[in-house]
């Protein structure tokens, strides 16, 4: 087995996503003395992103720059990555369990005839075994999995594996590789931005989620204010999405997104089992609900029984005060 692990870097709006650095840390957990080779694809100069990956623990970078890699397509990225994989012959490949990771890694697994562990939240060693922990049944249970043959291929869930400390004294080789990317049959004609600017739900450290109790689209405004203040994202229960208070892309639960932020504030959410599956592994859960019997209080670390329209604005003000430097 070679001592080389590849980490596939992923960027949004020209900036590497945090999960890329988490993937580097994950590779270190797989084999602490492995050479970590970062791969970045795009249509522009990728030197700076390469340098950033090195600061966070990568040893060497391969970039593939091509006009056909402007936006992600499984065909374009597939060709670029297979060229690099064939040349580097790594022992393993890691990337984030993001929209791109979910779309791309099964293709690589098929090409490599390999297993694939999706959505890992932890990596450990037990004697000689490399063990991945991943949620099943949307977090109602967990499984520990091993790869029994072939290359190590895994995606990691954002927000679970701590990144390595940034070290700007680190340096490494950044090499650009020419790959001919041909015959793209699936063309992206346009991208319509709907997601709120800034923080993505699956990567957010703080999530303010609203349920039916929020009562209307307008009712979500105070939630957005609080989320903005904390650099977080807004989510919703299925009830709120079904009632058209917000877009389905915000839905958290067994259908919808499964999230594990540091702080989850559930506002006007009763806590159906399907919703709890999507968020109950958050580190700290706050519930605000006028019904003291609401199920959400069973998983909450802190609960306020009260009218959310009264509580949320006050909470925002109080947090504002708390965040101001004390004189």
């Amino acid at each position, binding site marked *: 087995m070679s001592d080389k692990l590849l980490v596939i870097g992923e960027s949004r709006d020209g900036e590497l996503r945090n999960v890329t650095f988490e993937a580097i840390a994950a590779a270190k957990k797989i084999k602490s003395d492995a050479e970590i080779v970062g791969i970045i694809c795009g249509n522009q100069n990728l030197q700076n992103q390469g340098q950033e990956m090195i600061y966070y623990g990568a040893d060497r970078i391969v970039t593939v720059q091509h006009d056909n890699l402007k936006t992600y397509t*499984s065909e374009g990225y597939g060709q670029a990555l297979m060229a690099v994989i064939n040349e580097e012959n790594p022992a393993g490949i890691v990337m984030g369990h993001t*929209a791109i990771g*979910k*779309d791309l*890694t*099964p*293709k690589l*697994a*098929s090409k490599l005839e*390999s*297993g*694939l*562990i*999706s959505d890992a939240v932890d990596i450990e060693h037990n004697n000689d*075994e490399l063990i991945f922990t991943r949620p*099943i*049944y*949307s977090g109602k*249970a967990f*499984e*520990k*999995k091993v*790869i*029994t043959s072939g290359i190590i291929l895994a995606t990691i869930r954002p927000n679970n594996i701590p990144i390595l400390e940034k070290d700007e004294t680190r340096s490494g080789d950044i090499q650009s590789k020419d790959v001919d990317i041909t015959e793209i*049959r699936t*063309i*992206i*004609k*346009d*991208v*319509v931005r709907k*997601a*709120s600017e800034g923080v993505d*739900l699956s990567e957010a450290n703080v999530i303010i989620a609203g349920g039916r109790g929020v009562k209307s689209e307008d009712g979500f405004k105070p939630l957005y204010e609080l989320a903005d203040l904390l650099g977080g994202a807004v989510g919703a229960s299925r009830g709120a999405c079904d009632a058209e208070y917000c*877009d389905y*892309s*915000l839905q958290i639960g*067994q*259908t*919808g997104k499964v999230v594990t932020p540091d702080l989850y504030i559930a506002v006007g959410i009763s806590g159906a*089992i*399907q919703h709890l599956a999507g968020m109950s592994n958050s*580190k*700290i859960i*706050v*519930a605000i609900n006028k019904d003291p019997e609401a199920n959400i*209080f*069973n*998983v*909450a*670390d*802190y*609960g*306020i*029984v009260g009218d959310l329209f009264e509580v949320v604005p*006050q*909470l925002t003000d*109080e*947090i504002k005060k*708390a965040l101001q430097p004390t004189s």
Partner: protein
Amino acid sequence: MNIYVLLKKTFDTEEKIIINDGQIEDDSAEFIINPYDEYAVEEAINQRDEHGGEVTVVTIGDEDSDKQLRTALAMGADKAVLIDTEDDLEDGDQYTTTKILEAFFQDREVDLILAGNVAIDEASGQVGPRLAECLGINYVTTITDLKIDGDTANIDKDVEGDVEKIETSLPLLVTCQQGLNEPRYPSLPGIMKAKKKPMEDLEIDDLDLEEEDVEPKTKTVEIFLPAEKEAGKILEGEVEDQVKELVSLLKNEAKVL
């Protein structure tokens, strides 16, 4: 059009998970069609109604999987195929599933394959794109709209909340995301008709596969439940005081501010 739907049965979303002897207890569980696969069945029916052809629903499972197949037939699918692996395979993973489906599709004419974007049990989302790659056909995951015109497909794809407008060509595999459609409930006449619709039973022998051809590449070594959360703290007093206390707890005890 030859339209296929990949379907999996999953635990009802209401079910609690109980672990017995290291395995998830499924004797008393209610099973449903994986909710994302319901979007696939609905979309397949709509596409057939618009363009003609036939919808075949395929599942890999055990003898009880016919229940979910009958539901899909009652919704309006034309044919069902059950690949029963219960007697032949002890373990399997997404590699196994893909190899079986690849063998199944080997001699079939396919225009469109639809699947859910994930199953809500194992939630790996691998089988769709893995299969497309094996069959050498295009694929688009997490779609929220599909328009087919001749050999061209125009698709809306959900990318973490943004929408990509995609053009691609048939044959094609898509995986379905919430928002694509509203799956119908089977009607009573639909349920009656479903009883007479053809259901084919296959085993891996029938697909010219040996056990070693589909040997998994990964293995589950342990299943466990998340640690029970300790009862939380319900704050008391006037709203103003509760809010103050909460902020103080978040800052000093939980250290998340």
